[in-house]
């Protein structure tokens, strides 16, 4: 069991404990008991403390895109086990369990659709799928998303939530970093915008490739974003980490991101940005 999977069930079990099935949910930060239906309309942001809960790729995409005209891209891409990876549990078994738990084929879901009527291609990570780790499928899906952007001229948007590269695919995973960086270079050469939206958490190989290559970097409040995990940094430097280290607000101060945007405002803010960036297409 990876550390991510170890963390995950405990989080869900905390949320579900002592709460009648489906009706109420508990905020992980301020522990307020919240009415599930209301929470849904608030995009899973706690109304008491503004905590942005981690949400699934489907909820993310449904909440971001216009309701009509959504098409999923490469929905059937599935992982293989290129290294016959030796572990206490087989990689294929881990994939199977993750698929069962999340109802997704892998850790990235890509859709084309519209945002306030404007054509866009949007990718979103499913963090519950092996910690949103990037293997061959995630890399390839991201490439296909960017290729569709290049074919149609529709801007590309990605919501990242990932622990990094997927070690069960070894160097194949590492190569997804250069593969996705290349496709963004080609997209950039065509002057098609890429907006990277960093959500909690965006670390390692995902952070050190496409997530940090946006024309615009937007982070949700208080998201953990960085290269090395805070525990690794702490063990390396053997000193206490500064307050708010690797959080969105810290990154804004250090100049790594353009802005922090509340989840309820993401649709309008991204639309506004894209309209400004794509002005020439509209005029000519």
């Amino acid at each position: 069991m990876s550390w991510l999977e170890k963390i995950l069930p405990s989080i869900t079990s905390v949320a579900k404990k002592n709460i009648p099935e489906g009706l109420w949910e508990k905020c992980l930060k301020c522990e307020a008991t919240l009415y599930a239906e209301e929470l849904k309309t608030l995009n899973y942001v706690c109304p008491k403390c503004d905590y942005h809960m981690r949400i699934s790729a489907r909820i993310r995409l449904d909440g971001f895109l216009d309701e009509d005209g959504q098409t999923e891209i490469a929905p059937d891409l599935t992982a293989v086990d290129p290294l016959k990876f030796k572990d206490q549990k087989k990689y294929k078994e881990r994939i199977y369990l993750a698929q069962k738990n999340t109802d997704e084929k892998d850790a990235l879901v890509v859709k084309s659709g519209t945002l306030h009527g404007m054509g866009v291609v949007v990718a979103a990570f499913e963090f519950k799928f092996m910690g949103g780790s990037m293997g061959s499928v995630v890399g390839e899906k991201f490439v296909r998303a960017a290729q569709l952007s290049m074919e149609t001229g529709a801007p590309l948007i990605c919501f990242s939530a990932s622990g990094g590269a997927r070690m069960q695919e070894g160097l194949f995973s590492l190569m997804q970093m250069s593969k996705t960086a290349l496709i963004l270079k080609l997209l950039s050469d065509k002057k098609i915008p890429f907006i990277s939206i960093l959500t909690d958490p965006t670390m390692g190989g995902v952070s050190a490739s496409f997530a940090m290559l946006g024309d615009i970097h937007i982070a949700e409040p208080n998201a953990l974003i960085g290269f090395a995990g805070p525990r690794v940094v702490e063990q390396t430097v053997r000193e206490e980490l500064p307050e708010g280290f690797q959080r969105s607000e810290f990154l804004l101060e250090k100049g790594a991101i353009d802005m922090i945007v509340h989840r309820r405002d993401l649709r309008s803010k991204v639309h506004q940005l894209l309209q400004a960036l794509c002005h020439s297409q509209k005029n000519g």
Partner: protein
Amino acid sequence: MNLNYLNFEQPIAELESKIQALKSIEDKADITQELQALTNKSNLLTKKIFASLSDWQIAQLARHPNRLYTLDYIDSVFDEFIELHGDRAYADDPAIIGGIAKLDGTSIMFIGQQKGRTTQEKIKHNFGMPKPEGYRKALRLMKMAEKFSMPIVTFIDTPGAYPGIGAEERGQSEAIARNLFEMSTLATPIISVVIGEGGSGGALAIGVADKMMMFKYSIYSVISPEGCASILYQDAAKANIAAESLKLTSTHLKNKGLIDVIINEPLGGIHRNPDQAKVLLKKALKQQLQEVTATNINQLVQQRADKLLSFGQFQD
């Protein structure tokens, strides 16, 4: 026990110390035969041990304390090396050495990670773990190489990008990502060699290449065996098991099509015959340089892109 030898090298170490002892005898007349016999025996034993190395043993060779580091190669492999410093924004990072050099009469841009041998050197070069300014220096030099049509040669030897507070503050992720982005279509040939340890994104950030080479007993991995073991088994001491899983050796990676060329090592590894290793590296570099410079640059960049896009295995 000889500390300059790894555990599995100890039988060789014993023979070698006998040979050294014999060599120090002044009157060589009577011992020539014995010396020859012992040398033959040592070579045979080395061949036998090295014929069936485990992946974990190879990982240990890749990090052998006597293995050559970047600075050990520069003078013999290149001519007229002129070091260039700094990222023009924050600092000079000694974990990455950069500069202009000549290889076989051609001006090239050299970039290499340096680990350091003595304690003092290790601290100076931060154990070969670059900070963002190191990657930004590398990128500055690579852009210069593109501008002046110089092929780029990079040597990879790092445990990984430095996971420190300052490195995070100055955007380690962005620095690595930016290099991948720019190198992917850089209009000049890029040749990379893993000379020891290829540690994840920290290695890849100077390793997006037209020709990806590895010394035979070097390693290249998405995560260190220790890191992998501590995640999978909650025990870094199980690194030997993780090393087998990760398929991090040159032979595995060549079989998977993830690298282009394996450079042979002297019998017993680079540390047993450094001079021969330098010759082998120079020869391999010259050959690859001829190949990449003979290719039209647009075609080369297209091939690089096609190769990057082909990486990955999945079911469609």
